[in-house]
């Protein structure tokens, strides 16, 4: 494993980062100084540093504080304050963080779920980008398509990000790994996109699994989230000893060879070659990918390795990506047992290279390069933890935790840099920094099954694995301890007088039962399948829209099939309220046949809870599940199955996509919190703006905490 990146070092935010930049910074430094003279003068108030911890739960936090496991947060709570922080409805990360960013509820910013639907086709689409209305046009020459117009992607989030307001007022603003900011909107502030940033394939974590073993299947039969490449271990020199494996890594879609109106299939991606050479003892491999090489032992990760994809020959158009390899198992000669010996090497999703990203991931565009000049390569994929590998069974918990440690180190390096830059030349005066941390959220999702950190007497989770649980039941606590140590670094190094806020977007609960909303809608007569079908899915056109009144796309969303809005709507607007009431009443009355437990705790009509700017795009009903319940992945993407409720046997075992009242987040402050309490996410945005004497933008509804 070669590690040539410069060790993490720091540079004041008012100066160009040291090293690497060469002429660019030499010349630009002068220009920036001139530009700085034209920039509004920073307000003469102490700075604000915010640590945004996704998924930090007030109940778990309080328990760990009481047990003395979070000394820094305990100190912070004592010196300042610690309260729960109301989240938004639905309490999903992209929705909640967009609300924090814009100071608006979902009706204002237009992000209502991870997944939206295209009202014309009913198909699920990412909430990050609006439905395409500007198709690509291209000139065809031979087998190559040269785009001439259209196809531009924009960020679907409306409203004004708070950092734009701060930046215009002269506040020196740096935002690290902010969720929901990809595609990256223009901004004068320094921002780096976080959750929602895709990998090079355009997916959210598509890994590659090189193996000579039988392809594993998931217990629920769902599709694996990665590329499975069944390889042959070859005997290069014919001496009877197998020694090498060739494979390919998929990169971005081969857009120059796909007709603009064609769907992208598995064969439409650019590829880069990779070769693995095995040592004679089968304990390590030498990896050649592009011009980079690495030698890793079984159970180790390589450092980042650069791979290039040629869009057009001879480097006319090429895209750089970077990938890490994990040598899971180096014992070729597989049997039929997927868990037996064999060759299995994992390649991470191909990330954008921060020094030269194929898609913009920061503002200004060069900021990611400036950061990488100091930090070396870092994860650019929005959710860097390899959750898909663990969900799919490619990783066991040990593998997963090993990778989480890499992400944690990445986070710590970036946070130390952010903190040093915050201090800068002016001890934080007139500066605002936000730093996002994913540790707790993803590990609560993945590791809750090993031991409920919230309810000591909780029964075993359906996905509980006895052997693994013994080793990993305290992992979530360790994630809290990691956040505590980050907070300790900040407390110890924060310039005197600066404000420090630690906040989370929501809390957490166990996720033991899958609700299949579309199946429930079918069973209750609101969704009707085409003749001859009882199961199927919305994307594969199995639903009879001429008889369907409501459907589910998204984790908490129910849409009415309303005339004039949906492609083949049948519910007249005048009848909408009655249909919504009937669905809500029935869902609230639903009881789990397993134990009689309430399934849905609260139903909300979007028109009752959202502001009006973009309410028309919202789902009609927001389903607030009770503790332990959540909509299944299958139903979220439009599948209609056989059962309404099933045990959640997935390793994705903790959740927060429920009634917002059961998953509040947290807020810590180094200044005493007023006793009124009752703070919400939007109030944090208002607090930051007020601190810098900046007026809120139209539509911002929060109230400053101080």
């Amino acid at each position, binding site marked *: 494993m070669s*590690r040539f990146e410069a060790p993490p070092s720091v540079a004041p935010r008012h100066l160009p980062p040291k090293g690497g930049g060469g002429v660019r910074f030499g010349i630009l430094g002068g220009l920036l100084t001139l530009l700085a003279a034209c920039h509004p003068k920073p307000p003469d108030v102490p700075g604000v540093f915010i640590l945004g911890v996704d998924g930090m739960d007030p109940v778990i936090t309080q328990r760990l504080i009481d047990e003395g496991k979070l000394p820094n947060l305990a100190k912070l709570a004592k010196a300042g304050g610690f309260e729960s922080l109301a989240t938004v409805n639905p309490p999903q990360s992209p929705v909640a963080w967009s609300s924090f960013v814009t100071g608006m509820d979902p009706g204002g910013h237009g992000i209502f779920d991870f997944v939206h639907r295209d009202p014309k086709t009913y198909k699920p689409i990412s909430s990050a980008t609006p439905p395409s209305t500007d198709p690509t046009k291209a000139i065809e020459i031979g087998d190559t398509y040269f785009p001439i117009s259209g196809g531009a992607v924009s960020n679907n989030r409306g409203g004004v990000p708070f950092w734009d307001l701060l930046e215009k007022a002269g506040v020196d603003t740096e935002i690290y790994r902010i969720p929901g900011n990809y595609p990256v909107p223009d901004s004068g502030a320094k921002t780096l996109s976080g959750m929602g940033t895709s990998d090079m394939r355009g997916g959210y974590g598509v890994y590659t699994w090189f193996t000579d073993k039988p392809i594993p299947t998931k217990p629920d039969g769902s599709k694996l989230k990665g590329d499975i490449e069944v390889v042959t271990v070859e005997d290069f020199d014919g001496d009877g000893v197998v020694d090498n494996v060739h494979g390919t890594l998929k990169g971005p879609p081969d857009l120059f060879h796909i007709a603009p109106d064609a769907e992208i299939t598995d064969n439409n991606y650019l590829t880069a070659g990779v070769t693995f050479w095995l040592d004679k003892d089968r*304990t390590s491999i030498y990896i050649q990918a592009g011009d980079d090489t690495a*030698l890793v032992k079984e159970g180790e990760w390589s450092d980042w390795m650069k791979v290039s994809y040629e869009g057009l020959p001879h480097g006319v158009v090429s895209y750089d990506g970077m990938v890490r390899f994990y040598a899971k198992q180096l014992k070729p000669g597989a049997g039929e047992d997927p868990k037996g010996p064999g060759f299995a090497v994992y390649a991470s999703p191909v990330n954008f290279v921060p020094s030269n990203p194929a898609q913009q991931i920061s503002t200004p565009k060069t900021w990611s390069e400036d950061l990488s000049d100091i930090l070396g390569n870092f994860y650019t994929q929005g959710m860097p933890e390899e959750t898909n590998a663990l969900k799919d069974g490619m990783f066991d918990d040990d593998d997963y935790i090993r990778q989480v440690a890499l992400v944690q180190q990445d986070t710590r390096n970036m946070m130390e840099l952010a903190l040093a830059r915050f201090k800068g030349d002016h001890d934080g005066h007139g500066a605002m920094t936000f730093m996002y941390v994913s540790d707790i959220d993803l590990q609560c999702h993945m590791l809750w099954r090993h031991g409920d950190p919230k309810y000591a007497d909780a029964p075993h989770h359906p996905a509980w694995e006895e052997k693994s649980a013994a080793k990993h039941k305290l992992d979530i606590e360790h994630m809290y301890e990691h956040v505590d140590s980050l907070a300790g670094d900040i407390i110890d190094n924060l310039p005197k007088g600066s404000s420090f806020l630690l906040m989370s977007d929501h809390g957490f609960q166990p996720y033991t039962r899958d609700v299949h909303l579309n199946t429930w809608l079918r069973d209750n007569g609101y969704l009707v399948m085409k003749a001859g079908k009882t199961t199927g899915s919305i994307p594969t056109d199995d639903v009879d829209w001429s008889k369907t009144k409501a459907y589910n796309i998204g984790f908490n969303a129910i849409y009415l099939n309303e005339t004039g809005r949906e492609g083949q709507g049948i519910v007249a607007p005048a009848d909408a309220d009655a249909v919504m009431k009937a669905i809500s009443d029935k869902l609230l009355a639903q009881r789990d046949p397993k134990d009689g437990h309430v399934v849905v705790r609260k139903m909300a009509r979007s028109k009752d809870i959202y502001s009006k700017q973009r309410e028309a795009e919202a789902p009609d009903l927001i389903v607030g599940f009770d503790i332990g319940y959540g909509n299944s992945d299958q139903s979220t993407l439009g599948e209609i199955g056989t059962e309404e409720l099933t045990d959640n046997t997935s390793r994705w075992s903790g959740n927060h996509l429920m009634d917002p009242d059961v998953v509040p987040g947290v807020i810590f402050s180094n200044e005493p919190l007023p006793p009124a309490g009752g703070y919400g996410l939007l109030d944090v945005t208002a607090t930051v703006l007020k601190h810098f004497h900046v007026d809120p933008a139209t539509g911002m509804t929060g109230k400053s905490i101080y």
Partner: protein
Amino acid sequence: MTSLIAFLNTVFDVILAPFGHRLAAFDLLIWPVAAGIAALLVYKKVSNQKGIAAAKNGIQVHLLEIVLYKDDLVGVLVSTARAMAQNGLYLGYNLGPAVVMMPPMTAVLVELVAHYAYAPLPADATPLLEVTMAPGRASKDVTLDVPKGLTVDAGPVATPDGMAVWRLKADAPGDYVVTVKDGADAESKTIAFGGEPRKIPVQRTNTWEAILYPAEAPLPSDSAFQTISTKVPNRELTFFPDGEDGVLGWFFLFSLGSGFLLSKPLGVEL
């Protein structure tokens, strides 16, 4: 080639880094300027100064014709052809001097790169030592001897196409000499971890590339090994990109700059 490199090393190790390697800017300024002045004087001596002046004059005359008689298409074409012919003549006059000056200029540049383009490996780095065998030689029996304080962290992986790779780890900063062996053949290689900036060895080879890496002696032409190398970090250089590109930047900016600035005072027709 070995003798030539040894001679150049002897000379440049004496004259470069008079204040140590920390002050890279001194050598990266002084020697390109000196090389530019020396090149200017050599150029004056070995070039056809009258011919160059005449060719430049010819180019200017024909370009002026193009501007003045731009409405006369045939005249413009003829003048363009003549300007290009004069340009070719000018380039021809420069060919000889370029051949004369290239070796010493390359030598200076290569030595500056060896001294200032690379940084020692971080003390906690785990670099790869990569060995490429001579054509026809297999790598599977190659072994590595490491000195005290350096350990083999992983490997070797011997590839059937003639490579052998080890991953190394040092206990403490320092220059470690490892020995690669294949039967009776044995060659050493220095690997620099941590410490002050210094002349950093990158690779030993018996190909033409040896001239580019003078920090260590080339491998013998009959060696079992073709190349022994480690990748090292680039050194950070002020105002220019890191590493080789930065040294090239300094060299060309200051050698060409000084040459152009001093050509008139020194009476050199460029």
